[in-house]
């Protein structure tokens, strides 16, 4: 793999990691509130998938800060959104779980487990009708594969041969419930066999993730219909910041942290360069926090702004 690309992947993972550290710290200090789903440990998957899926449309979940930044959103604006400020990507109306950027083809940020999958299928449907072939990637956890909408979606995507990549980030836990307690399968590829081809990848290895997602997107672009990719991964933190992570024992957590995707890639980066990239990531995150702190609160006069178009808003109660 190209040296510059490896450095970019390494930097983006570090940026994600330090961003999440800062988010956690500022949550503890009371600057951030509500839900906060940290992506620490899963950066290899989040960054690798976003970087590999060139162009095309992305639909993802509530664990999205690292993906949003890897896709190209400014860390400043993402942090300001966590702070609920007016310079946040959603002007304080979305929060941690709801980031959108149509110009980057990034459509959330959805907080209903599995709820965004039918939306993504519709987008892929539209792309097929429009004759656009970069496809749509929808990212969800293992827990979402137990929802009704997931099964409706693989059925429709397969029946219509839609250009959609279903990316299952399998960290084996739906909040605190281990996947095999509520599903007959550990590997969710088992659920899609009759509908579409699937690929498996080690989500802790960013190079493999990058290559697999690239291959999967090519499959879409060639008009082969949908594809399912399952990446086994592991989060270092609880499901959200309020989850004390007591359902995983010390041994499991050790194995999880030993697989750190950043440490795994580090030997392939020149040591001096690795140090520089880390310093840069730290600085960008520090600046993002300062930006978020200085950004004003949204105006209360604008409470209903954006609910409808400006024209629609003139009719709203």
């Amino acid at each position: 793999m190209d040296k510059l690309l490896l450095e970019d992947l390494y930097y983006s993972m570090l940026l994600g990691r330090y961003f999440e550290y800062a988010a956690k710290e500022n949550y503890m200090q009371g600057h951030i509130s509500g839900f906060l789903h940290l992506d620490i440990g899963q950066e290899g998957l989040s960054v690798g998938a976003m970087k590999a899926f060139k162009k095309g449309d992305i639909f993802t979940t509530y664990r999205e800060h690292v993906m949003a930044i890897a896709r190209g959103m400014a860390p400043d604006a993402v942090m300001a959104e966590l702070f609920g400020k007016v310079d946040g990507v959603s002007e304080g109306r979305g929060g941690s779980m709801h980031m959108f950027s149509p110009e980057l083809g990034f459509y959330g940020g959805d907080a209903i487990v599995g709820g965004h999958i039918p939306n993504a299928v519709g987008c892929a449907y539209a792309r097929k009708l429009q004759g656009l072939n970069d496809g749509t990637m929808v990212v969800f956890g293992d827990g979402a594969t137990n929802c009704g909408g997931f099964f409706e979606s693989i059925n429709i995507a397969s029946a219509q041969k839609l250009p959609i990549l279903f990316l299952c980030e399998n960290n084996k836990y739906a909040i605190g419930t281990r996947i095999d307690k509520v599903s007959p399968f550990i590997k969710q590829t088992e659920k899609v066999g009759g509908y579409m081809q699937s690929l498996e990848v080690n989500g802790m290895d960013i190079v493999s993730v990058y290559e697999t997602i690239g291959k999967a997107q090519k499959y879409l672009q060639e008009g082969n219909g949908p594809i399912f990719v399952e990446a086994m991964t592991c989060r270092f933190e609880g499901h959200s910041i309020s989850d004390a992570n007591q359902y995983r024992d010390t041994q499991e957590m050790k194995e999880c942290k030993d697989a750190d995707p950043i440490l795994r890639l580090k030997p392939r980066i020149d040591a001096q360069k690795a140090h520089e990239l880390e310093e840069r990531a730290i600085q960008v995150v520090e600046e993002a926090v300062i930006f978020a702190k200085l950004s004003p609160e949204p105006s209360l006069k604008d409470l209903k702004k954006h609910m409808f178009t400006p024209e629609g808003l003139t009719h709203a109660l």
Partner: protein
Amino acid sequence: MLYREALNLALDEELKQDKNLVLLGEDIGAFGGTFRVTEGLFAKYGKNRVIDTPIAELSIVGNAIGMAIAGLRPVVELMTANFSLLAFDQIINHMSKIPYMSAGKIRLPMVIRMPQGVSRQLGAQHSESYEQMLSAVPGVFVFAVADPTYAYHALRQSIRMDDPVIFIEHELLYNKNSEVDVNAKVNPFKARLVKEGDDITIISYLKMLDDTLTCIDEIEKSLNCSCEVIDLCSLNPIDFQSLEVSISKTGRVVLVEEGHKMGSFGAQVISWAAEELFYLLDAPPLRLSGENVPIAYNRQLELASIPTPQSITKDIIQWGKQSGL
């Protein structure tokens, strides 16, 4: 022209003018639509514009949301309001909120059409009305239009809006026959003044509006008064301004609706009248609603669970006499 033909014409003309417009729903294509609203459109525009879906309402609405995100203008048909319950997560958690949560970066120019209400012995799971729930959702406009000319124009304008619209129809209106004026000026956000009068303001919509109109002669004769009848048309927003003008004149207000009385849509209108117009009222408001019971299959039980022309006439006359008319 029949009511369903007016809707068909509206869809046809919009399909002709906007290549990004797509219809999707169960059996709307080759089959022609359960209530024949989309009849002929599949043959005319093909399977990529008039899309047959599986029986999976959550996905029908979810797919439409994704299509709208991708730049299409989808119009969904749900076979009945009862089935819309399967899509409530997509309607409420997604369609109504994504534009706001994204600070307006995403707009959802889409329409969901659905018929509701008691038809003829279709049973408890195919006969209910859900405007009370749908109109309570911020971020969505809800129209429910009884008149074919208004329906034609309101649907066309709904399709052209860049905000999500829920367009509620009634199964027993589809074969209603009347002239359709394609050149009429219609504002779907405004209530329609159907009949002028001085003594009672009667507010209704959809099938109950038509049923109420059949009672007016007898009510007026019996109470020796004149009724003003308003077709609400828009359920969210509500055209309170037009209602206020009428109630200020009459001092009496009646609301007729088909939905269950508990938590009903009409309760919203009546509570507004009580809060805002209390000192203008000459009598307590009257709300005629469905009973709080699932709709039975048996015809007599079915009719006993909703207002009918007979019950509307009787209840309004009785209320009028008690309140000094």
